[in-house]
């Protein structure tokens, strides 16, 4: 394992734990997006650009978007 791979793996590890530790849903969805970007870097470092491209669009756009819309909708119901 070279230095770049160690950095990428460590970033994934640290950010993955941060996603779990984050308890506020909006903040958590943003941290999850950053975690996704760390995965993108890891996939690029491991020479899987096709997977990295899928991960970019899914983790930074599609997933947070759906999460945020759902949070906005359910929050509105809870707090009149």
């Amino acid at each position, binding site marked *: *394992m070279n230095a770049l791979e160690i950095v990428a793996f460590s970033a994934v590890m640290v950010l993955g734990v941060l996603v779990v530790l984050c308890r506020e849903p909006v903040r958590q969805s943003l941290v999850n997006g950053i975690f996704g970007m760390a995965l993108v870097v890891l996939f690029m470092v491991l020479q899987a650009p*096709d997977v990295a*491209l899928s991960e*970019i*669009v899914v983790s930074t756009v*599609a997933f947070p*978007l759906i999460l945020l819309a759902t949070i906005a*909708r359910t929050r509105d119901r809870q707090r*009149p």
Partner: protein
Amino acid sequence: MTAGAPGTAVPIRRRDDHRAGPDDRPRQSTGGRQLRVAVFGAAAVVLGGFLLWALTGLPSFGDFHGEYGRLLNRVGVAQRRASNVVGAIVFDYRGFDTLGEEFILFSSVMGVAFILRGSLRIKDQSPLDPGGNDSLRVVGTLGAPVVLLLGLWLAAYGYVTPGGGFQGGVAVASAGALLWVSTTYRDYHRLTPPRLFDAIEGFGASAYVLIGLVGLGLSGAYLANFLPLGTPGTLASAGSIGLLNWAAALEVGAANFLLFREFFQEYIQTFPGVEQE
């Protein structure tokens, strides 16, 4: 508690007006907690031990045992003339799996639409959408065409360079999302008629099936190549992989677009001026 800014519409009445704060939760008894910690400790030691044992038996980092992958890397470009071997695997060697994946996406988006669509009735199609602030609008309107172009490029060169119909399709749908944050609901509704995207999604999914059937008729196997293979590294390469790639791009792009749309509709329901059925 502060009310909405003056000038905004009357807030919608909620049926469930009771509040559930964090203080209302029943308190855990300390005895139950100790028991659970003990059970967790025992399970963690046993399962952790097994996990460590399994990890010591793993092949070392970078030790690749996939002979099939090696083989395809060797013969892929020569056989299919696709310089992105991943693209050749997705749309040719494993083309039938991609058909299945496409229909997973197709049916899940249909499921979301069945559940979420039609629960919204908007007065004069104009809920009081603030439409974001100026900086958001600038970033959105500048970013949307760039992301759209990027998505089309990813889809078009899917079998030449990394990318493909799936990645390109989702990127194109993200351009739609940027458009959403930079315009009001009414403009977005006018720019993107859902019926058009329903049609594109169905067209993409059925085109994939039909291209496969053409391969069955002309070349003797489902999804087999029936076009001239061309020169690797150019757009005119990889035979019918190019067509399948575009079919997937249309299906995935429209599917994600419709998916986003359903969730935007849910978000819209939190705006004043929206009536629920």
